[in-house]
């Protein structure tokens, strides 16, 4: 886990939560700086939504503390927190107009009517919905409803914005454009935001840091490039991006930090600290594997090209190297050799990862 940023705006310490016999949050610690955009990324059931609800006050943690700007809010009810939430299906008030929805929080806070209209207009303008202010929310498209939910949450100027799978109900094209737009908007107003998603693309696009969650724990919390290029755990590797993996056993430690692993494809060198005899998983990204002209040389493995999937600019090769699961190799789109051929691959030393083998 990465070090806490200098000025932690939101500080989550050792937050735990159980539902019956299930541990949903297993001692989560996470610091978020003011103005930072963080994504909680993980599969359903990993605890990300529960953590979000604990920050919003919609679920009370069993242990640990949640602090915002130095103030302990762990036990504070949600209406006293000033934490904005954009819900998965937006949770717009169906009996109110677009304006009524955005004005809701302002009215509750007792702002004078004359002020409310101005603020509502400003935020509707910000999400480009000023022209639909008087419509009932049911008359809006999914993307427009999403914007209303955003404007409604922003209008009360919360200290933190939380997004619970807020973009997942949109179709792909709209989602992608909303990702860029939303990130820019949050940047412009200097919001501190936490996104919860199971969509790795969303996480990579939107956030300054990604917290990869699994089984109620944060497996890795780092900037998107680090999470992609240096996944801390096998789970983080599998969950973000594609991977190619080989299992093996450490047979030699020629020097500290370097190991030689015996695999079905032969002996491969990797950078890691493991004792001789340790069962390990060697992994890399498909695009880090390069085609080699010869079968000899350091870290070159050979296999039969099983299938090629052409993606235009890229091609994905599935190479049978005798391990059962074909190895994925990504190369430039038009360079693929014919299927059935024996091909040679150079396994990267510096961009290869080694993890303890969980099945051993």
């Amino acid at each position: 886990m990465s070090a806490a940023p200098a000025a932690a705006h939101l500080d989550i310490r050792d937050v735990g939560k159980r539902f019956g016999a299930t541990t949903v949050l297993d001692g989560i610690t996470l610091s978020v700086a003011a103005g930072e955009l963080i994504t909680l990324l993980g599969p359903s059931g990993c605890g990300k939504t529960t953590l979000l609800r604990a920050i919003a006050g919609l679920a009370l943690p069993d242990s640990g503390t949640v602090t915002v700007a130095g103030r302990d809010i762990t036990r504070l009810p949600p209406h006293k927190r000033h934490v904005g939430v954009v819900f998965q299906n937006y949770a717009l008030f169906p009996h109110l107009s677009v304006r009524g929805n955005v004005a809701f929080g302002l009215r509750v806070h007792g702002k004078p009517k004359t002020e409310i209209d101005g603020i509502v207009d400003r935020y509707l303008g910000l999400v480009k919905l000023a022209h639909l202010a008087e419509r009932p929310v049911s008359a809006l498209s999914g993307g427009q409803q999403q914007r209303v939910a955003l404007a409604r949450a922003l209008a009360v100027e919360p200290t933190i914005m939380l997004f619970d799978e807020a973009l997942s109900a949109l179709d792909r094209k709209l989602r992608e454009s909303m990702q860029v737009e939303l990130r820019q908007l949050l940047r412009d107003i200097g919001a501190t935001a936490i996104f919860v998603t199971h969509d790795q693309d969303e996480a990579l696009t939107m956030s300054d840091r990604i917290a990869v969650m699994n089984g109620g724990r944060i497996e890795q919390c780092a900037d998107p490039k680090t999470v992609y290029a240096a996944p801390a755990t096998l789970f983080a590797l599998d969950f973000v991006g594609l991977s190619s993996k080989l299992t093996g056993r450490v047979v030699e430690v020629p020097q500290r930090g370097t190991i030689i692993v015996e695999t079905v494809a032969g002996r491969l060198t990797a950078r890691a600290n493991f004792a001789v005899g340790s069962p390990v998983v060697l992994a890399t990204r498909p695009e880090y594997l390069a085609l080699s002209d010869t079968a000899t040389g350091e870290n070159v493995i050979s296999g039969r090209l099983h299938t090629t999937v052409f993606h235009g600019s890229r091609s994905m090769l599935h190479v049978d190297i005798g391990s059962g699961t074909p190895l994925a190799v990504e190369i430039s789109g038009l360079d693929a050799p014919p299927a059935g051929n024996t091909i040679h691959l150079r396994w990267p030393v510096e961009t290869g990862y080694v993890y303890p083998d969980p099945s051993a």
Partner: protein
Amino acid sequence: MIAALLANREKRIALAFLAPAVLLLLVLFVLPLLLLLPASIRGADGSFTLAAYARLLGESYYLGIIWNSLKFASLTTLFAFLIGYPAAFGLLYARGWLRSLLLICLFLPLSVGVIVKAFAWTVLLRRDGLVNAALQLLGIIDEPIRLIFTEPALIIGAVNIFLPFMILPVYAVVAQIDRRLGEAAATLGAPPLTAFLRVIFPLSLPGIIAGTALVFALAVSAYVVPTLLMGERYQTLPTLITKAFLLARDPAFGAVAGMALLVIALSVVLLSTRLNRSAP
């Protein structure tokens, strides 16, 4: 209008599905009602007269009966709402077997029949009944008090009998309200009561309107409940109608009282449809 309806395929199909119900209502309900109208303006010699109307609306005794009916139905509806509305939420928040049990408790009495339930109340409320015995045992009263044949007893019995007709429509509507709406309101700064008043209550209005209309219509037309719990002296429109037809042999007056009941029931139904249309 019918030709226009038949022109549209979807409407034709809808009409076909509705036909059996519509026919049944036409023959068994609308036709007898239409026969009431001529009966209400026919004198003993068969000539046209509005004398029966003049009697019902002109004599304070009969106006008192109309007032009784309205008061009984209104109070029953009010208390059914005050008890049934929170109960619907209780049902909503109950989980698993508890909810099943509560729903059974709600549906089972509907199959018992109103006469049995009304009689059960007379047994509970009479001088040597369970309620008096319990009150004496607890030392709250020394002597048995008169419970049955009092208006509070009538309202209690009626509320008990008609309560499911308030709870079920309200429950059906509030069960459809997305729970996240309450959470959204809270995160926007609304304390629980504010969130309820500004979000949950307005969204539950269709259920309240339906439940109110149902209970009011049932109560204003109830015959068995007031008869058994208040006795012969207490008169409402339904008991008046029965007496006019069966005892006084005055079909014209019975028909007029029937028309009055119909007007009241229709106004409630029309009002509730109208309110429902303007509700969310």
